């Protein structure tokens, strides 16, 4: 595998799937693939938060390597809750 590619696990709404990521690309580049792989095609990528294991929201415009994501790590894609209350 090229040096700039890593395999990470994306847990989309609780369902895990493997995605290949370019560490020099922004995090948002993995969102569409992860949604497609898990069959979550009903909401656009902008409606999903990407979080680390602790549940902290990650900036989707930051490069993957700048977020400290490395081979084998896991991120969580969670749908933003709709307007309520």
């Amino acid at each position, binding site marked *: 595998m090229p040096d700039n590619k890593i395999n990470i696990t994306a847990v989309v709404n*609780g369902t*895990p799937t493997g995605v290949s990521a370019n560490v020099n690309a922004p995090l948002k580049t993995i969102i569409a693939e992860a949604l497609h792989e898990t069959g979550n095609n009903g*909401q656009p990528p902008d409606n*999903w938060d990407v979080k680390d294991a602790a549940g902290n929201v990650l900036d989707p415009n930051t490069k993957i390597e700048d977020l400290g994501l490395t081979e084998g790590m896991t991120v969580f894609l969670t*749908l933003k*809750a*709709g307007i*309520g209350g």
Partner: protein
Amino acid sequence: MVRAEVVVNPEISRRKFEREIADYRRMEDIYIERGWFLLKAAFPEVFVVFATPVTAPPTVVIGAAINFENYDFWPPSVTLANPFTRQPYLMKNLPVQMPRIGAGIPPDLLAQLQAGLLPPGFQLPLDNLLQSASPEDKPFLCVPGVREYHNSPAHSGDSWLLHRGKGEGTLHFIIETIYKYAIKSIVGFHVQPAYKIQLLQRNIAQ
């Protein structure tokens, strides 16, 4: 216990339920570190307890019973409950609220908030995702994907069928929503006069 009307073959609902439980169990080690404890999962109900690791000592905060009858033609029902007795809370007895930064906040104000530039004591308008008719009633989680939300006359124009299959109303979505707005915002204890201790919530999510 009054059972709901059966409108979906229970075997279909059960299989979907078990698939969601299996997905949860695969990632469970990470969820435990967040303070999620899925204690009981027997169709059609799940009981989850939420704890926070940020207080000293770590604190068990609240429980949630999530019911998957007629899933997913119906969204799950959510009842917040005492984590030890599993008795449903009334609004007046809730140990935490679920504040959310209001949707109408101007972007520049939001940017100042996120940058920590707002003066101390500045009050942002907040929504409460827990709603009830009165303090004597059980609260309901007022977000799409929750049965009580869609059954409320106030949301009669927002059918569950408009959301079904798009990500809302799953086990993970509901647990994550409770965690994000009720638990992750906890930063410590607030000790009031006469030694009444409340959880201190500051990290209000958008």
